[in-house]
Structures are given as C-alpha cells and as structure tokens.
C-alpha cells in the first residue's frame, strides 16, 4: 500500500508540473527533439528521434530542410518586403484558442500546435480561453504583446460577426492573418420525422407556411447563417437558439425542431441517426463529403463556412510575421499534417498569407450586407 501513496504523490507532482506548463502534455513530450533542431541547424542526433512517434520523425525531416532554406533567398520569391527574422522563435509560443477543449476549433489548434512545435523548434502551447461565443479569447489575442510569442487560432468569421453585432474590444484589423489550414462549410440538416428531404422541400414548405419552419442554430455565427439562408431562398423561418451543438443535434434528432443549421462535419453522426443533410456551402463537393449535395448544385448561392485562421496581434514585427508565414508554408506542404486533418474529418485546404488575406477581404464583403440588412435581428 505504501506503493499506492508513492505512486499518487509522483502522479500528483507530475500533474502539477504539467499544469504549470500551460496544460499541454503532448507538446512537452514531443519537444525534446524539437528544441535541438530549432535555432542551430544541427542535424538531429539519433537518440532524439528514437523518442518520437512516426509523425514527428517525418516532421523532423521537413524541419532539417526548412532550417537550411530559411537562410536562403526563398523569402524574396513571395514578393514580400520583410526578411524573416532568423532568430525567431527563441522561447515557447502560446496559442490562445477562444473555445473549450474538445471542439472543432480546439482540435485544429492542437494539431497545429504539435506540427508548429516541430517546425519552429520551440514549444507551442494551446491555452483555451472560452466564453461569450469566442469574444473573450479573441479580445485577449488582440490585446496580447505583439512579440510573436502569443498567437491565436479562431474560426473566421466569428471575429467579424462579433465585431459587427456586439461592442467588442477588437476590430478586423486587430490581427495579422498568417495562414489557414481548413475550411468547414456550413450545412443544413432536416430532422428524421420532418418529411423534408431536399432543400427544395424545405423552401417549398417555408413558402406555404411562412414563419412556421423552425431552424435551430448555435454559436456566434448561427443566426447569421440562418438569416443568409432566409435571404437567399426568399423565405421566412423561425430561428431557435441553442447553447451548443449537443443540444441542437439532440432536438433535431428528436424531431423537436425541423431543421438544424450546423457545419457539414456533423453529417456522419446526424445521417447515422436518421437526419438528412440537405446541402452544404461549398463551390463543389468535397471528397470527404461526397455523398451530400452542395447548395450550389441546388441553385442557392450560399458561400459560408468557418475557416480556422492562425493570427498574430496587429503590431507584430514584419520579420516575425514573415518567419511564421515561412513556417506555415512548410507545414502547408506536409502530407502528415493533411492526414491529421482528414483523420479528424476536417476539410483540409491550405491558404498562405496572401491567399488568406484575399479570401478574408472577399468574405467580409459578402457578409457585411447580410449583417447590415438584418441589424434588428441581432
């Protein structure tokens, strides 16, 4: 029995140590090797690699390549003026996630923090700062020291919608948008007992019974998505607000509401229990969700989704942004990273610094009128 006590105290100490390191055990575990890689361009020694899992080994190979490249001229090809800071990073990096552990945004940031730790050669820790639909964490990112050691990952357009509908401490320009790795399209699902199988059914029903169709939604974007659908289809529905995806899916599958507005990643679970995905907002069908129709196919122009973006506070030096952007480009070519995203059923699509900023400008222009027209509903 002494052993139990001994074990417990060891576990307790280990636990406390882990807590002190910003809640991320996995990162700690992987970091031994990464530290050696980082700033010195040394070739990994064999011992370190042995301690890592397969994914890390492969990453380390990329890492060697990157460290060589970093000193070369590849930056110039990007057409950006700043040189990447060769010394960055010199200390662990913190990524703020404005959502709770276990959700989609959290999953993305944990996959990324793991890969970034290896790529940058410094520990990258995830800190969950949930609350008020993401507002708390996003505001904290905006106010963080712009030194490149506090970054953030959140789902665009959460920030844009919050900024336009509530009195926030941040604006769209509070951030440098560095890269994005996934694009999760918005989708609508009908309940098992509703008898509505297609988008056409839904629109027809709503036209015949104005205001009677109930559409459940949750999150900062939920209402906006429903309003966009109303506008595009020219119908009048009743949005029902839910606190989270769990309640929403439960009430959909139990036929308490007619339609649920969620993202296409919920499709496997919902289909499994008898719900029907009637459409999702992508230009064309994604490989991962090949079985379900897009809105585009059904002549609805609804291009909405959530893109998890990696951001830094706005006044972060260009050299650091450049260094991060280079690292992201390396990760963007990593097949392991793509695999990790598809394993977690996240539709992977890499956008680099310029592509992302073009995408965001375009999206802002699409969203602004929808928000303005429906100002009273928020």
């Amino acid at each position, binding site marked *: *029995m002494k052993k*139990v006590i001994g*074990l*417990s105290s060891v*576990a*307790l100490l280990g*636990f406390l140590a882990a*807590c002190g390191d910003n*809640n*991320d055990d*996995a990162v700690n*575990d992987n970091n031994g090797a990464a530290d050696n890689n980082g700033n010195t361009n040394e070739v990994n020694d064999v011992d370190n690699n042995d301690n890592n899992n397969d994914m890390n080994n492969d990453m380390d190979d990329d890492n060697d390549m990157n460290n060589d490249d970093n000193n070369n001229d590849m930056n110039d090809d990007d057409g950006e003026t700043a040189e990447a800071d060769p010394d960055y990073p010199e200390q662990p990096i913190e990524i703020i996630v404005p959502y*709770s*552990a*276990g959700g989609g945004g*959290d*999953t993305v940031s*944990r*996959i990324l923090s*793991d890969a970034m730790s290896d790529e940058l050669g410094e520990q990258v820790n*995830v*800190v*969950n*700062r*949930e*609350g*008020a*639909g993401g*507002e*708390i964490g996003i*505001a904290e990112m905006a106010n963080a020291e712009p030194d490149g050691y506090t970054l953030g990952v959140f789902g665009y357009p959460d920030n844009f919608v919050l900024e336009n*509908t509530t009195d926030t*401490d941040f604006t769209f320009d509070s951030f440098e948008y560095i890269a994005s790795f996934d694009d999760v399209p918005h989708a609508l699902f009908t309940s098992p007992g509703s008898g509505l199988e297609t988008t056409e059914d839904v629109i027809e029903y709503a036209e015949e019974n104005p*205001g*009677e169709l*109930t559409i459940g939604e949750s999150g900062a974007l939920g209402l906006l998505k429903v309003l966009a659908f109303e506008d595009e289809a020219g119908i009048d529905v*009743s*949005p*029902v*607000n*839910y*606190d989270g995806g*769990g*309640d929403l*899916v*439960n*009430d959909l*599958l*139990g*036929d*308490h*509401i007619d339609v649920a507005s969620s993202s296409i990643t*919920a499709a496997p*679970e*919902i289909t*499994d*229990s008898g719900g029907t995905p009637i459409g999702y907002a992508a230009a064309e069908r994604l490989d991962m969700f090949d079985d379900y129709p897009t809105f585009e196919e059904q002549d609805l122009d609804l291009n909405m989704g959530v893109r998890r973006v990696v951001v830094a506070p706005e006044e972060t030096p260009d050299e650091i942004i450049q260094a991060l952007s280079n690292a992201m480009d390396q990760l963007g070519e990593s097949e392991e990273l793509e695999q990790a995203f598809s*394993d*977690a*059923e996240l539709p992977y699509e890499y956008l680099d610094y310029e592509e992302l900023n073009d995408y965001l400008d375009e999206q802002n222009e699409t969203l602004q009128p929808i928000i303005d027209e429906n100002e009273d509903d928020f």
Partner: protein
Amino acid sequence: MGAFDLDILLGTLSPDVLMIVFIGVLIGIIVGAIPGLNGAIGISLLLPLTFAMDPQNGILLLGGIYMGGMYGGSITAILLNVPGDVVAAPAAMEGYPLTKQGRAKEALYYSIFSSMVGGFLGVLTLILFTPPLANLALMFGPAEMFFISLSGLVVIGAIAGNNVYKSIFAALLGLFISTIGVDMAAGAERFTFEAMTLRQGINLIPIVLGLFCFAEMFLNIGKKSNEVMTYKDQSIKRMTVIKDVIKHKFLVVKSSLIGTFIGILPGVGTTLAVFMAYGESKRTSKRRDQFEKGNTEGIMAAESANNATVGSSMVPLLALGVPGSPTTAIIAGALIIHGIVLGPSLFEQRPDVAYTFLYGMLLTVVAMGVIGAFGIKYFSYILKVRQEFIVPTVLIFALFGAYSIRNSLFDVLIAIIIGLFGVIFKKTGVPLAPVIIGVVLGPLIERNLTRAMTIAEAQNVPLIQYMLTNPLSIALLGFVILLLVIVLKMRKKDFGA
C-alpha cells in the same frame, strides 16, 4: 447491441488495458480529491496525450479519470468539508459531521462502496440498454427539459432545513447569478455593467469553490486543529459497512437508477441526479432528523447516484454523438481526432473501440473500488495534518482550480468574493446547496422555456398547448406536481407548517 465478442472481452483484460484503467482511475481520484480540481479538468489536461494512443486506450484513460474523479471529490468533502465539485456536496453535508464525530473512515467506506454500486449499475446500463435509452433521451425536447429542470427546484424543498425562507433566498440567489451575462437568445446584456468579463456570465465552478472551499477555509483560519476535526484510528471493518450497504440495497439501487436516468439527459446531468437521490433518501429515511448531522443513508444515496451518471451520460454520446456534459464533450473530442464517427454505426464499424471501452468502463469501477477500499486508511491521515498547513494548501489549490477552468483571473476573484458571502451564509444559517442548484438549473429552465416559446409561436399554438402536446411532457408535469405535494407533506410532518 447484443453482439458479444469474446476476443474483445479478453483483450480488455490485457495488461496494458488494465494498466491504463488503473492509471486513469488513480489520476481521477487524485484530481477529484484536490479541492478546486475535478475530473473534467483532469480529462482536458490529459486529452493531448490520448492523441498519440490507440483510440480505445485513449478514451478508456479518460473514462477512468471520469469515474475516479466522480468518487475522489467525496474524500476531501468528507474529511475537510471541502467538496471540490458540486457532486460531492451531499457527501460533505453528511460525511463531515461524521468526521467530527471521529467516524471519518466509516464515512469513507460508505462512500466508496456506494460509489462502486452506482458506477457498476451505470456502466451496466450503458452496455445493455444504450439504444433504447438514447431514444428516450431524444424524446426530451424543450418542454420536457423545462419540466424536469423545474422538478429540481422542487427538490430544494426536500433538502432544506427548518427555515424555508432561507432556502428560498438561497435558491433565488442562485437563479439570479445564473442570469448574469449575455442572454444568447435575445442578445441582451444582463447585469454586465458593460464589463466584458461579466458578459461571459459567471461560471459554476468558481461559485462552488467560493461557497464550499473558500468559505470553509476562511472560517477555519485561526481555529485550533482539534476544534475543526479529530483523527481517530476508528476500528471499523470493511465488512461491517458492506453489510450495511447491502442492507440498504433498495436505497442504493434506487439512487443508482435515479442517477442513471437523469444522467442520460444532456445538460441536466449530474447535479440534479445527485440532489434528487439525496432528497429522496431523506424522504424515505427513518432517521430523517439525523440529516446534516451525519446520516450514512444520505452518503449512500448521493454517492451511488453520482457515479451512476458516469456510465449513463455516455449513452447519448455513443449512440447519437451528442455529448451530454462538458466532460463527455472532451471525450468526444478525443474520439473525433482519431476519425471515429459516433452514432449507431459505431458499434458496427468500430466494435473494437466501442466494446473495449464499454467493458473497460466496468474495470474502472473495479479499479476505483480497489484504490478506494485500500487507500482509505491513508486518506484519513489528512486529519493528522495541522490546520495551519491544511488551510493554505487547500486555498492554494482552490485558487489554482478557479483559475484553471478558463485560465481567467476573473474567475479567481469571483471565487474569493463568493467565498466571503459563503462565510456570511454559514454564520447566518443560509443553506449553500440551493444556491448551486439554482445556478445549474436557472439557465436550463430559462433557455428551454424561451425555445418552447419560439417553437410554439412558429407553430401558431399557445405555449401551454405546445408544452403539453405529448404524453411524456404531461407525465413530467404530473411528476413535478406530485413531487411538490410530497415535499409539502414531508415539511408539514417535520416542521408542522
């Protein structure tokens, strides 16, 4: 289900699975026992570790923490009167008086053995009845959730002491606290004073820590150790307690079933289950006047109910992919990152994951029993520690716990302020549990009512008609009324008014 796979069952008994179960439960008991931490925090800390593990082992580790954490809270609740989590509050209300009488070990034995019964029945339900129970959970829409949450408020009447006004005040205070923040349905700000920190609302855990941990420790400052508790090497045999638990089999099984059924409902979950079982045990007890003075029946009821929710809260998760509580949401995250689709097809497509997890959860009950039953002797050594060391240690952990929920100093501040209020409440005899019940149920009652109103309006029917369209919601309304009558009768008998 029905599919019974011998290979998987044998695989569950392999050394590495057993080790994972044991480690998970041990971590769970430790984080549960530390005031301010709980199973959910332990699970989110170890979540990243599971990404590198096989999915079945990963979720079994988390499942072990969940099970152990649900029990661990009772240890410090009984010994120090500081339940780290709401679910251990009744254990403190009944167990700590026993500790003061020098019967700490006895209380701890009652706690572990009833936790085992509850945990076992909960997991058994999960293994045997997942599909039908998942369908039952789906029948609970806004109207049904409204009534079941309302019944929780009625339960406050059963657990309240002789001054009903103090209990009503406490419940109303809890309901009021729950309204602070941005109302998601209308977007209106309530009592936020334009402060961003208040817009997110006040989290449950800092309130629990404030009322139960900080208040208790503040009161203990300056007291001599022997005023607060005494350590006695009580010579109680495990068998004596086991026999008594068996004697109360009806109570324990009933409480486990209450825990199991209420645990299935997403969102309502553990808090309601625990207090409902506790209130019910008080109603049926022959020693009702002993409640809050150290009644072992209260411990048995609450402890079996809280561990029963571990298994049943996974029913909607495994069967529908709907996580019913923050803890199960994190477990869902661990599965999703491995690309495992939750829902009916889980049992066909990944029987290895599903069944290893189910059988493994039974093992977590065994591991919890072994660690608990043999560890109790050592747990009670805490009572030998001098008060000067206990108070700062508990306060530090509680501060840390309050911070760690959302990594927010604001939560720490809230916990301390509520702690000061807790001191006043304890001095003036305002019961603390109703505050917590109010905070938990407030949003459930309000949100489901607004949802029901929206849907009724969309369907062009009066709210009353919508709320009472199906047999289940009518039955639940009947249940609320019946409960109210029972509670009123009970109070009349006990207090004569």
